[in-house]
């Protein structure tokens, strides 16, 4: 039940280009897994790029790490490279390792495999044995992993010290941030690719969880389990944990900012003492299984701060939450905890609405650099220029449309068209002018058909 794609690492929306070659591509019409099979059966095929528009592929003798090869964005293509060529760690004794490390663990440069000097030897490169250049290899299946003859005449050969994949990237806490290359479970079963629904169908489609890096068939922890895991290629075993070496205390890095009185982002770093839900229901202690049974035991989740009955976010939910002491309500958010302001430091101030502001602040409240005003060459820009009381210079924050919320700018972030600037009102809190409307007119909005209620039965 394993897919031939399991031997490949996928990069979305890119293709490989050899600049010296013409743009013309020889493509083979075939399904993606057929392309994988074909490439696997050819000794000199190292990757293929798949055109999802024409449903065809091009088998390639190189990877993105090869010389004179350019990785180019192209939304129509996905690039599939043989893992052995792109992985920087080894599986087992590393006899399939085809990476480009060419120095030993003591820093000596490797001798070219085709050379017999300074050390004579019996290994000669062939198209299939991978003895390219002077890269570390393991042609004799040495249990200590890839090695090479060195260019130092006093040292015949030496190990390269390439780490096993299970040790190369260590496991921090519960490993939600694990992005390593282990693709087998602890019982040795091969993992199912996250982008396939066979042999096991599952909800963790990579495009739905872009922040979880559900790459290829590597072990991941998208659901805040105890450790990284994967679905297996064995139809009888749904999912299993993977064996990955834990980080030592020194290696352990906190990737969340700890806060106390407010929470940032999803609140995974919130370590404050709020212990009720928004509506005031007391939280259940994390070390208790009553009234609600759960998996978030403090000793299984050592980095999540599951102390007492405090609101926490051990599973990457939207905000800190807790199990409640009410049997009828399992979990609830603690939205009474405020989000921390994520504004950047404000360095200047403005009066009124800031329509006369002509200072030089050019950053938004989130710290994004402003776009030059003249880059918006459309009608909107013309009308803004005409109505502005001060010139729209460079990328300085201005308020040409008399926005009641202060100076703003177009931003360099393509996801944020415009935003308000890191400038505060000079006179403290702004005064709002609220007013009774004399004449209100609405068009088609806000209408509802209450007659439906009567027909509801």
């Amino acid at each position, binding site marked *: 039940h394993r897919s031939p794609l399991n031997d490949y690492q996928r990069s979305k929306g890119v293709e490989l280009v050899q600049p010296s070659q013409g743009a013309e591509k020889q493509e083979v019409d075939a399904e993606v897994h057929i392309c994988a099979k074909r490439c696997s059966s050819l000794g000199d095929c190292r990757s293929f790029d798949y055109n999802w528009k024409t449903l065809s592929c091009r088998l390639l003798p190189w990877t993105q790490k090869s010389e004179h090869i350019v990785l180019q964005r192209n939304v129509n293509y996905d690039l599939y490279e043989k893992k052995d060529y792109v992985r920087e760690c080894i599986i087992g004794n590393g006899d399939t390792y085809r990476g480009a490390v060419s120095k030993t663990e003591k820093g000596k440069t490797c001798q070219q495999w085709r050379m017999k000097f300074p050390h004579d030897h019996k290994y000669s490169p062939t198209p299939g044995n991978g003895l390219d250049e002077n890269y570390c290899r393991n042609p004799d299946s040495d249990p200590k992993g890839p090695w090479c003859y060195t260019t130092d005449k006093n040292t015949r050969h030496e190990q390269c010290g390439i780490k096993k994949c299970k040790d190369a990237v260590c496991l921090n806490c519960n490993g939600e941030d694990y992005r390593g290359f282990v693709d087998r479970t602890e019982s040795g079963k091969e993992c199912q690719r996250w982008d396939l629904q066979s042999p096991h169908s599952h909800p963790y489609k990579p495009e739905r969880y872009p922040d979880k890096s559900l790459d290829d068939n590597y072990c991941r922890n998208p659901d805040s389990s105890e450790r990284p895991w994967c679905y297996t290629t064995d139809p009888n075993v749904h999912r299993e944990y993977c064996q990955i070496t834990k980080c030592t205390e020194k290696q352990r890095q906190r990737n969340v900012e700890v806060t106390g009185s407010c929470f940032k982002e999803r609140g995974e770093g919130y370590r404050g003492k709020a212990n009720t839900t928004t509506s005031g229901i007391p939280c259940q202690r994390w070390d208790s299984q009553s009234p609600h049974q759960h998996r978030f035991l403090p000793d299984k989740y050592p980095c999540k701060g599951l102390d007492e009955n405090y609101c926490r976010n051990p599973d990457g939910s939207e905000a800190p939450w807790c199990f409640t002491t009410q049997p*009828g309500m399992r979990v609830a958010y603690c939205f009474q905890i405020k989000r921390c302001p994520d504004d950047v430091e404000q360095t200047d101030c403005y009066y009124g609405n800031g329509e006369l502001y002509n200072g030089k602040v050019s950053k938004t409240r989130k710290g994004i650099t402003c776009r030059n005003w003249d880059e918006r060459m459309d009608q909107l820009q013309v009308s803004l220029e005409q109505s502005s009381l001060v010139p729209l210079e460079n990328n300085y924050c201005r308020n040409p449309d008399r926005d*009641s*919320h202060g100076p703003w700018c177009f931003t360099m972030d393509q996801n*944020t068209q415009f935003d308000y600037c890191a400038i505060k009102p000079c006179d403290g809190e702004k005064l709002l002018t609220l007013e009774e409307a004399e004449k209100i007119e609405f068009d*088609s909005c806000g*209408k509802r058909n209450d007659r439906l209620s009567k027909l509801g039965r």
Partner: protein
Amino acid sequence: IVGGVAAQPGNSPWTVSLRNREGKHFCGGSLVKDNWVISTRQCFTSCDADLTGYEAMMGSLFKNPGPNDPDAQSVPISRIVCGPSDSGLVMLKLEKSVTLNSRVAVICLPPERYIVPDGTECEITGWGDTKGTGYPDVMKVAKFYVLNNGECNVYHKGKVKDNDICTRPMTVEIGACEGDYGGPLSCLTLDCWVLEGVIIPARGCGKRNQPAIFTRVSVYVDWINKVMKMN
């Protein structure tokens, strides 16, 4: 909604249920244009959160409509835009426009900086916690009347700002609760329902004899229109 009644077909067709990647309702919202929803910042991770997999569901009274519910419309959320810092509002752009009909409609925005007259009839709607007051699986609705900020401040000891709007205290437990945040406080003006407030998290749910506080939408109408125009 604690207290209140179950909504009937046709009630509050602008009320939106926001769903996370697991398809679970987590907050409310209001449809202000066929491809824009307004909600509260407290419900979202960040102002540039990747909301792939998040959806806005509307048209059904049920919290979890079946796959064949003819009225329910679910549309992926494609973008989040945070409001002015003091607003606590967010605008959510939908990947495509929803189909407007008798079950899905756009609510009016108030005139800029408009003060809703004291005593105006309003309602809140949502699929949030009911605290055991019934109908946990359908949209609920509760009726309120606007209270001016001056009187509201007497209750809340001066904490109510101009960009807040209050409703009169009730003698019974009634009001918004967990899961309702981001939803609408809709008020009837000249035969049209107008989005005067956005439900924000508060300590407790539907506390009796205490005015409820919402974000006053009229203060941010210029920003709302600007976001829709520029994005």
